[in-house]
């Protein structure tokens, strides 16, 4: 009876669609209906029209690539930073304030500056995503490395383990659930960075965010809705993907199972 738990969300989904139709056909007069086109028109025009579909999927692919590459770079730099900070507390004391600043300044507000310096190309888009995604990975990894139990450290000390063995066989495995939690948070942020950052990029290949801005200015509301839905789908896919990864990789860890649900 596992399928039964899908029934309540499906009912909610049906209700939302029904409300949408009601708003389109009851609240809006035909001349204002472009503000909220009916769902079937969004699917028909946005996804079944071959030209629109090609444009949307090309944008989605580009934004997806930007988000994942930015995330990958943030993951490598973030985990390495956290390991270094866990080994040397002076390094943590020196770097931590700036990580907090990095987290608190609105990175998206810096996008025009990055564009000014590096141009509005692929590199800058990836850079924005990597900067946005960095902080949760560093803090979660650092927390994970520190969460190792004292007796486990004693066990390794008694066996005269070196720092590499301690890191590789104790700290990193213990931190893995936390690293994956950080990655999942960062993945969501990275997708946001890719889509919202796009609003600033008028040149080059259009990403899904560029298209959203374009359709808005042209009042192409069916395409606009389709683009928004696809951007949301990208975020959702990344979220679910990392959730599944966390569940598989850390089945031994009870807390991880709760987090990944």
């Amino acid at each position, binding site marked *: 009876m596992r399928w039964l738990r899908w029934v309540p969300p499906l009912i909610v989904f049906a209700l939302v669609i029904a409300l949408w139709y009601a708003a389109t056909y009851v609240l809006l007069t035909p001349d204002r209906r472009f503000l909220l086109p009916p769902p079937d028109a969004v699917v028909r025009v946005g996804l079944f029209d071959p030209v629109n579909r090609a444009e949307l999927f090309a944008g989605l692919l580009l934004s997806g690539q930007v988000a994942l590459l930015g995330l990958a770079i943030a993951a490598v730099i973030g985990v390495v930073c956290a390991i270094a900070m866990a080994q040397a507390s002076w390094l943590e004391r020196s770097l931590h304030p700036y990580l907090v600043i990095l987290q608190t300044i609105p990175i998206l507000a810096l996008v025009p500056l990055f564009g000014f310096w590096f141009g509005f190309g692929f590199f800058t888009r990836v850079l924005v995503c990597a900067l946005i995604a960095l902080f949760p990975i560093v803090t979660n990894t650092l927390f994970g490395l520190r969460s190792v*139990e004292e007796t486990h450290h004693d066990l*390794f000390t008694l066996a005269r383990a070196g720092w590499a063995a301690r890191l590789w066989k104790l700290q990193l495995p213990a931190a893995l659930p936390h690293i994956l939690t950080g990655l999942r948070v960062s993945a969501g942020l990275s997708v946001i960075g890719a889509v919202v950052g796009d609003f600033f990029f008028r040149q080059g290949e259009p990403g899904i965010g560029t298209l959203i801005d374009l359709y808005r200015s042209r009042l192409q509301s069916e395409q606009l809705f389709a683009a928004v839905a696809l951007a949301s789908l990208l975020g959702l896919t990344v979220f679910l993907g990392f959730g599944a990864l966390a569940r598989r990789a850390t089945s031994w*860890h009870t807390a991880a199972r709760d987090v990944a649900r």
Partner: protein
Amino acid sequence: MWSSGRVLGEAATSALSFSALSFSGAGKRYDDGTQALEKVDLTVAPGQFVAVVGPSGCGKSTLLRLAAGLTDATEGSVRRDTTSVGYVFQDHALLPWRTVRANVELLGELRGLSRAERRRRADEAIDLVGLAGFAHHRPRTLSGGMRMRVSLARALTVEPDLLLLDEPFGTLDEITRERLQSELLRLFGLRRFAAVFVTHSVGEAVFLATRIIVLSERPGRIVGACDVPFPYPRPAELRFSPDFARIAGQVSAWLRGTAA
């Protein structure tokens, strides 16, 4: 057969006979000023099973950490004359992401034994604690008693001549606890390591040990010591014999003295 007077003679005997572990006037004061242990004289001969009994927070764990070399004495000295020390932690300290076998192989891995050798030692130790069918289980799927068996097996892979046990059965239920006590004595009979077993249970100490040391409340110092004359193997019914009750009564009296 036992007397408080023997405490004073402890240092003298240690000078005469070969010992696996000896404390002379050892004390430990932590950086925050807490005096955990004070003037502890203790010798453990090879093949001897010493139980250390005391109220909670009396520095029993500190005594074991000193014995293992995990921390240094701030007064007096601790000398170990062993080639290999095994340590069994209070909370079993198994790595949850490793299977039973991988956990038991860990120490060999860290000491750089060859894959074949550490596998051989691990399988032997797992057999010895009666977990042969569970090599591929993860700790999460095992009961508390089985986890403690794994922890014992891991300590045995270093082929210890001194085994230090920090309240290993403290969190187990009575039945599992008694079963594991007999198991431990069986392993002790097979491997003839010297053992220091920290516990707050008087019955456990009398059932297991050849010698019992009683510690006072913090700062922990030795307030009583006695030999336990029962030969091994010790049957479970020993717990109900008059001699057992007499020794347990004496140890309890020392413990009550510390609480006053």
